[in-house]
């Protein structure tokens, strides 16, 4: 006998610390037969607002595209503007940018540790990882003056040079974190509950992944090696030695393993940055922002964020304000196209875990 289908509303209050959005699921028993992503709770009209601001002022919006990892959005915009204007960026600034991007990646993964495990009822990990993330936020605070929203990478370079003794603090934090990762392995990856709840759950079909434009860890978890830092290197990634981890299987577990390894790669990158960072200027100053006009034209940049490839497209009509700025976020594909398909056939209790494993970021979807 077929059970009667029921509709459930998951969200909109942070379904699995992702941000405000809702998944409307139709279930039969506790099996999902249809899933629809409902967004609209975080729409702030950023792209339109950017058109109303001069080329510099949008920094306060960009960092809010994706709260846990604001820096790739700042970076992609800054680079697009530089491309459009033909503005050179000092080598030192490029290294500092990579440092910031990788610190942000680690901070963001630490938050993911918490979200992914809490979505399975493992709360201790989140307590730890959010605490460890704070050490990185301390570094950000010292470097940029802000803990979460940095507004630090901007056209021409970065806003301030590294403070005195900063390199050492970063190294110390990296040493600490590297050791700490073993503790996380004990609690998370070696944990039967975690394995059982993630292996074979939320399996992404490799072909579909490519077809839909899935990126980042969800794609790499399907065995596809794709990372903008290697495929289309920006800043100084081509001068750094690191590998892009890939896992087979396409399930939550595979995606988790990818992220687990990526943190170690980021630590490796940061150490190289600190070893190789050249002295010199950190900023090629832009002109008076009020009158700073960019040549007519457009530019597109790609950046590897934790959610995967993100892109920024900016158009100038020759004026002091962008004519258009469009952001390609990974979360849109992951949390709408992919999620809606992936959930079908899964169990209600896995919704939060699947959402987390896809890098769902509602503020980025809506902008």
């Amino acid at each position, binding site marked *: 006998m077929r059970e009667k289908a029921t509709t459930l509303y998951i969200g909109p209050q942070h379904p699995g610390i992702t941000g405000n959005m809702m998944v409307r699921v139709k279930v039969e028993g506790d099996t999902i037969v249809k899933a629809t992503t409902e967004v609209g709770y975080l729409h702030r009209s950023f792209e339109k607002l950017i058109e109303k601001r001069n080329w510099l002022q949008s920094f306060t919006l960009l960092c809010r595209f994706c709260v846990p990892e604001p820096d790739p959005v700042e970076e992609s915009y800054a680079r697009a503007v530089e491309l459009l204007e033909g503005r050179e960026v000092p080598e030192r600034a490029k290294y500092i940018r990579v440092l910031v991007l990788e610190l942000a990646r680690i901070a963001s993964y630490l938050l993911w540790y918490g979200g992914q495990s809490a979505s399975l009822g493992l709360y201790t990990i989140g307590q730890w990882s959010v605490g460890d993330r704070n050490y990185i936020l301390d570094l950000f605070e010292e470097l940029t003056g802000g803990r979460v929203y940095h507004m630090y990478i901007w056209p021409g370079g970065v806003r301030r040079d590294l403070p005195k003794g900063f390199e050492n603090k970063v190294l110390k934090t990296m040493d600490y974190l590297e050791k700490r990762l073993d503790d996380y392995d004990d*609690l998370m990856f070696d944990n039967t509950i975690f394995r059982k709840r993630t292996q074979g759950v939320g399996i992404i079909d490799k072909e579909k992944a490519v077809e839909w434009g899935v990126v980042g860890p969800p794609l790499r978890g399907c065995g596809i090696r794709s990372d903008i830092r290697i495929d289309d290197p920006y800043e100084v990634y081509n001068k750094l030695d690191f590998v892009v981890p890939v896992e087979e299987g396409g399930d939550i577990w595979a995606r988790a393993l990818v992220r687990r390894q990526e943190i170690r790669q980021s630590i490796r990158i940061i150490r190289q940055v600190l070893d190789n960072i050249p002295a010199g200027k950190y900023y090629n100053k832009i*002109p008076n922002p009020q009158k700073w006009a960019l040549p007519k034209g457009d530019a597109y940049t790609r950046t590897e964020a934790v959610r995967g490839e993100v892109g920024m497209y900016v158009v100038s009509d020759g004026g002091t304000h962008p004519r258009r700025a469009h952001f390609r976020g990974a979360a849109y594909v992951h949390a709408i196209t992919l999620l809606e398909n992936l959930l079908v056939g899964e169990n209600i209790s896995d919704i939060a875990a699947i959402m987390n494993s896809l890098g769902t970021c509602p503020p980025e979807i809506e902008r």
Partner: protein
Amino acid sequence: MSFDLKGTLKPLTALKQFGKKPHTLVDVPSIPLEASDHYRGFHYNDLDECIGCGNCSTICQNQAIDMVPVDGIEGKKGDSGLRPRVDHGRCCWCGLCVEVCPTGSLSLTKDYLYVSDDPDTFLWTPGVDNPEGKERISFFSTEETSLNDFGRIPMPELEGMDRVKSFAEVVLGYNEVQARAEASRCISCGLCTEACPEHMHIPEYINAIARGNDADAVRIIYDNNPLPEMCGKVCTRRCEDVCAIAHRGDPIAIRWLKRYTTETVKNADMIKEVVNPDIQEPNGYKVGIIGAGPSGLTVAYYLALKGFDCTIYEAHAKAGGMTMYGIPKYRFPEESLDKQIEYIQKIGVKIHFNTKVGKDISFKEIYSKYDAVFIGVGFPKPWTLGIEGEDLKGSIQAVNFLYEINNGKTVDIGDKVIVIGGGNVAIDAARVSARLGADVTILYRRRVQDMPADWEEIEGAEDEGIHIIPQAIPVKFYPDKKGHVKAVEYLKADMVADEKGGRPKPVPVEGSNTIIEATAVLGAIGQQGDYSFLEEEFSEKVKIERGRFVVNEKQQSTLDKLFAGGDAANRSADVISAIADGYMAVKGIEDLLVKGN
């Protein structure tokens, strides 16, 4: 299902953390964490440094900053008197306001904790409401990090020693690229507009130049200045003195930008085409103007636009007043002046040249013929030093000397010229003498920094090899056998502080007499008015004090239909104040004749 022993036990290793102290936060929120040294917390503003330019408010994309009056801070030239008030409920701590603050007065502090249930208390005037913030500054801008452009685009000029070989214009002018770049430095605060006697729309026309719209700039400029090329070349530019950017950098080259704009319209026809003035139908009123200097031309231009029939009486063969006959051609070439005058004539202003009032036509006749009369005759008569030997041959008044030279005549000054004075006329006379091949020395009573002349003129003179002896008071001119001046004796002066708080006074040092040789001495210690053209019936009635007509704010004298402006009415003795007088007189005359008040 197999039992995973390792996977069950491993998580229990978390217990090893048991009893450890939490590793990030101390007792929050009762003890706030100390923020880092670069933290972007609440604002602090150094109220004495701040000039109320409002650039912080302009950049703030959250509209978190309002400019408000503050007790005890008065507006003055270069300071709006307002200070930023921050709505900490809107602020997102981006610090852009700090990065664009031209004075560097605004900063962010380490403070970040404020709790209140009264939303109004989130509006703070930094510096007023948190004076203690000064000790907690953590995010500030330096000249290196600031987003202001502090460096001026250098003006191309002839080389110092090449200049003295001719009367070619020294300043070559910005090209388009340079002008756009220079204009782009402006932050549109408008403090300059306040300081300009004529309140020209400076940020607006600079903006037009920056946007690449020169024709707009021309129109904006002509809105209240009919002689912009004159100002673009020789204005005393009080606007630049108060430029917000000058607090940490070079002021925007406002004068050179105006010059650039006016040079884009090459002749009178082009000016007319670009300005496309809206000339009203004749209204039947006739206005007589005495003197075709800057004030008279301004009155005539704007009244003519309004439909008045304007006639100017000019004693000389050309219009422009002191700017024609007093300012040397390397600063203000005749073509520049001619095209502006021609344009003014094109819109219907009549000028009777070589018509000296009091000689060729009586004042009385003008007064009775016109509905209103404007006097803008300037200060034609030079002051004399009143010392022995001043009437010797070769002792010449600088204004007369400049007049002759500008008229294409020659003046025999020999090869050792001494100029007495420190104003623009003195510097002009000195630089002209250098161009005539003389070795030039300027004697000035006070220090170089006290010289009323434009600093760029002083520098220009020095570049051209002119020697300045400051704190030197001439006491006697010596003649040679033929009664021609051959030397000047002067006393060195000490600068003594003025008890009343005025500027320090030069006091001669006894026995410091020094004699220097001279083949000519040019006196340039100022001029005065000459109103001998006024018949007794007028001079009795019109009030003149200390050589100037007494006028109200609309330049109206004590005789209803008589207006006056320029040097004859104001103490500023510069072109732009004369233009400002003319502009006000337009209003006065219109009010009197058309509106009847």
